[in-house]
């Protein structure tokens, strides 16, 4: 289960249109508050959506592994992606919900008097997050400067760089890591005036490639 693929969050819409509706796989609790973000969260990173389907369709179990005593192929009966399977991992809904709700993070903008809060789970990727921040602070326009993300205040022309504090307490530039990893490690956001942001480590080319 490679996690480097999680940066493909924005190409999910191409994949998810396919089988996702039919299988209606969910890891959400029954009251399924947000079905939209579920889909965008990258669960369809693998195209094998067969596992866990109703019995009417063919079971995806590999027939070759049925009775053989040979060395384990590793593919066997396991689904291609663990995230596709209903009710797996076996964690109670209560716990899933409780741990999900911590995806709300504070957003601070240098120079504004109060903070806001956003639910990172509500977004499919960096682009949506920045668009939402743009709307929230209503004075910015999101601009893409050669693979870097900045928000620009059209009034005074100041550019803001989105940064975040991760679980280790370090301030990082938004966009380097795959989206889901970011959601899991981001504790708070700060739109830093880009004049201050020069001290953050420059991004490697690989970092740019991942941050789609």
């Amino acid at each position, binding site marked *: 289960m490679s996690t480097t693929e999680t940066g493909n969050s924005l190409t999910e819409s191409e994949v998810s249109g396919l089988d996702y509706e039919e299988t209606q796989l969910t890891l959400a609790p029954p009251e399924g508050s947000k079905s939209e973000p579920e889909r965008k969260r990258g669960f369809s990173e693998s195209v094998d959506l067969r596992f866990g389907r109703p019995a009417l369709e063919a079971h995806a179990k590999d027939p070759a592994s049925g009775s053989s005593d040979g060395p384990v192929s590793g593919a066997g009966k396991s689904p291609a992606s663990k995230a596709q399977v*209903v009710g797996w991992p076996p964690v109670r809904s209560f*716990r899933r919900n409780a741990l999900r709700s911590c995806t709300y993070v504070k957003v601070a903008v240098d120079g504004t008097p109060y903070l806001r809060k956003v639910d990172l789970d509500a977004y499919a990727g960096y682009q949506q997050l920045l668009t939402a921040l743009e709307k929230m602070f209503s004075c910015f326009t999101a601009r893409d400067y050669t693979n870097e993300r900045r928000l620009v205040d059209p009034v005074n022309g100041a550019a803001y760089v989105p940064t975040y504090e991760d679980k280790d307490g370090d301030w990082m530039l938004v966009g380097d890591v795959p989206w889901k990893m970011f959601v899991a490690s981001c504790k708070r956001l700060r739109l830093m005036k880009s004049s201050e942001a020069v001290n953050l480590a420059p991004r490697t080319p690989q970092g740019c490639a991942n941050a789609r």
Partner: protein
Amino acid sequence: MTYFPEEVVEHIFDFVGSHRDRNTVSTVCKAWYQVERLSRRTVFVGNCYAIGPERVMARFPGIKSLSVKGKPHFADFNLVPYDWGGFALPWIVAAARLCPGLEELRLKRMVVTDDGLELLARSFPNFKSLVLISCEGFSTDGLATIATYCRGLRELDLQENEVEDHGCQWLSFFPDSCTSLVSLNFGCLKGEVNGGALERLVARCPNLRSLKLSPAVSVESLNKILARASHLVDLGTGSFAVDHRTDVYHMLMNSFPKFKSLRNLSGFWDASPCCLRAVYPVCTSLTVLNLSYAPAIQGDDLIKIICLCFKLQKLWVLDSIGDKGLAVVASTCKELQELRVFPCDIYGAGTTSVTEEGLLAVSSGCPKLNSLLYFCYQMTNAALITIAKNCPHFTRFRLCILDPGKPDPVTDQPLDEGFGAIVRSCKNLRRLSLSGRLTDQVFLYIGMYAERLEMLSIAFAGDSDKGMIYVLNGCKNLRKLEIRDCPFGDIALLKNVAKYETMRSLWMSSCDITLGGCKALAAKMPRLNVEIINENEETYEFEENLSDLHKLEKIYVYRTVAGPRNDAPDFVWTL
């Protein structure tokens, strides 16, 4: 014994405590049956559909305590449709009519309504304790009626329920005259809480020993509560994150040292590392610590707190503790009996977790370990074999390797030998959950060695019907078998049908069971309910037309003396 008057027999039965022993005693002769049934004070019904409520109440009119369980265990993981059943109301109605002396009611995985709660509240004048675990269907209005009418209520314990929020006033419904609370747990409530009402309630209940708050209870409120409740033994905090520069924070830091009796700590919803420091003064006397709802507490902070908890018997944490943190547990918590390590990151963003190394360390450092729930990314046979040698006292061993069907990463072999070692070594094993790549061989071992096993959970395992047959033919104490996504079919299902009458229930989903197989089972065993749960709307309209070869997605088979249930929804067919 027939020479003794009934009062003497009854007195002797007072010493017969366990349900099983009392059940056995009642089958000896008619006289004993009568004495036993009239003197029974506690009844436990493991499956609410195994027997009708009226029959239970009629047989045991003197019961003071009733426990009932509803939905199958896999309902916890959303495998059972929402309205499958498990209704509490018939039990409450029957008890209200036939057992008005009822004092305690404990329900698990059942649908409880506000009407049911109101009936409960009004029907039992001596009612003392309500425990609801993983239930749903009620709101804070129902809680308000409990608060209003249950004079002398001692315990209200709500664990992981789905409760609809109709406002925060329910706490205010506890009258001023209510001073009897010993235990109050509303950690699962999502809505706002009336802080003032809570503080006053706590202040007037001098016997309060267990208090578990919901995330909506602020730290300010907690501070006030702690100031009035220094005899607490068991505390679940509310929200536990405030800025360290505030007065509230400083008050929090000073709140804990005076707690001489505190033994259990939990809650810590969204706890921040700096607030966690507040509990350091009580760590050395803690026996239970639950930090599994505090994802912001990372490895190093967990280590700092665990270092102090040398009396810990039960620890629940997230896998952010890492193998390194578990090594600290191993070297510090020598009294540890139960460990649960939950996945922090359910959605696979690849953050730190634990491996077999962490569990190895704990098994070697904590000789009293007997209960385990461990979510990890990998496990090896070698580790399991060592763990089995280190900890022969496991009664509960639940291992969940997050990647279904994953083999031993070192040898690429299935984990048959590892789990085999566990069942061979742990003679008292009562509960086992398997995961990882497993062939029929592991089930051969389980059937052969797991003599005391009562509950077995299997997922993505096995190669053929033989696997399931080994288990059904062995495991003479098996009560609950739950299977998902395994290649077990009708041959396995029908091999040992008599076995199912010795068990509470069998759950099978995403296996190879056909309609024909289930029909055959139902025909052979009239005292079983063979339920087919069919959520596929296309097929359940044409049930008569389905061929016997039609594969079934979910079946639930259980012994019953009550016949097919009359409250089954459309998508459940009892054959």
